[in-house]
């Protein structure tokens, strides 16, 4: 399947990328790893008139720790996150998630910024960002993760706005992220993540609705001394997932509870 024709330009800096997006107008799109955008273009679900390639924007490829925060450039690829000693030490759950995004080939190309901007309901990093209150930094503003994932594939990003960085709080305590899927490289049918922080447990869910969910009911139960089994029973509170070919809504609610319990029991 061949995508419809488009114009192509390559940016070498954030400034250049934004200028190229502006000049190309509202039908232009950023291409990062292309691992979500190209499949959509080949199926003609997306038909941008112009692609601005940001793979040569070196200034967006970094991982560093500053003032209790892990700052990750938008062009950092999954494989880099998975192997980074800095990530493994300061936010190991991010490295663990990265090592299970798609398959080795997808991980060579796909980027953190691409996952955030794409805002697929089954994306893994958006769940971590939501449960830890991460900040998405663009070329013009900072947006809290809780405000960023508005709906399926929907974010507050302007058409010419570039995601530059994601800022996570560091957290190296017990954690676990579990995905239920039929084949290793599939997206999560449902995912559950737990992270122990200085302020208690944070719990997040993937693909139980159009956006990632912070399971506050589970967090509150744990804070008041509930066991993992008791707390996980709250994982499906207030959720309204939809049914699709992979899972019915009821099965998704069941998975939310079971995966949350297992993640809490296995957290290390």
């Amino acid at each position, binding site marked *: 399947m061949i995508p419809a024709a488009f114009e192509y330009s390559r940016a070498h800096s954030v400034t250049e990328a934004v200028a190229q997006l502006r000049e190309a107008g509202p039908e232009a799109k950023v291409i990062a790893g*292309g691992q979500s955008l190209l499949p959509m273009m080949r199926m003609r679900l997306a038909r941008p008139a112009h692609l601005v390639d940001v793979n040569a924007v070196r200034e967006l490829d970094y991982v560093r720790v500053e003032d209790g925060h892990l700052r990750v450039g938008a062009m950092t690829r999954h494989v880099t996150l998975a192997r980074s000693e800095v990530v493994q030490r300061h936010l190991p759950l991010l490295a663990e998630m990265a090592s299970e995004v798609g398959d080795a080939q997808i991980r060579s190309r796909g980027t953190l910024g691409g996952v955030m901007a794409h805002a697929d309901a089954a994306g893994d990093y958006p769940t971590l960002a939501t449960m830890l209150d991460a900040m998405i930094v663009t070329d013009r503003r900072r947006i809290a993760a809780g405000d960023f994932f508005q709906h399926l594939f929907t974010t507050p990003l302007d058409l010419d706005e570039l995601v530059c960085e994601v800022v996570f709080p560091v957290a190296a305590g017990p954690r676990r992220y579990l995905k239920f899927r039929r084949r290793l490289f599939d997206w999560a049918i449902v995912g559950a993540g737990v992270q122990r922080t200085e302020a208690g447990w944070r719990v997040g869910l993937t693909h139980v609705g159009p956006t990632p969910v912070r399971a506050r009911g589970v967090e509150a139960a744990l804070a008041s001394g509930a066991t993992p089994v008791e707390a996980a029973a709250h994982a499906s509170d207030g959720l309204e997932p939809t049914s699709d070919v992979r899972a019915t809504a009821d099965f998704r609610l069941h998975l939310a509870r079971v995966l949350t319990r297992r993640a809490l029991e296995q957290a290390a």
Partner: protein
Amino acid sequence: MGQTLRLKVNGVERIDEVEPRLLLVYYLREVCGLTGTHVGCDTSQCGACTVLLAGAPVKSCNMLALQAEGASLTTIEGLAAPGELHPLQTAFWEQHGLQCGFCTPGFIMAATALLADNPDPSDEEIGRGLEGNLCRCTGYVNIRKAVKAAGEAVRAGAAAPMGG
């Protein structure tokens, strides 16, 4: 409208004019004439089109040719000198790691990257390392055997897997 693409394919420098929408796999097959890289699913699922980009495995059906600007690519044709076989090619042959062979170039390229990182992978590590590749006829048991045998050959110094 064509744009200039400069890159290295199997060690050879090339300059071509390509349309932006040309996918890397069709560039390799139709412009370079390297038809060893196969198109299986065409939906980024099967891994038959896997090639190495600066040593990293990528699905060439899921990349624009222009995104390989300045890069060094290795395809199945570039793994060994003409008339010779890479240890993985020998091992797939000897261990019966293929039936129809359609998936084989992709498996061998993905396994090359795997062995470059980890020359002595466990069964589990081979399974994980090759999770992006599907085979519809051999099954995975002999493929795993082939990767193990190639790992042994590489460790014994037959030849280093190409890192790109």
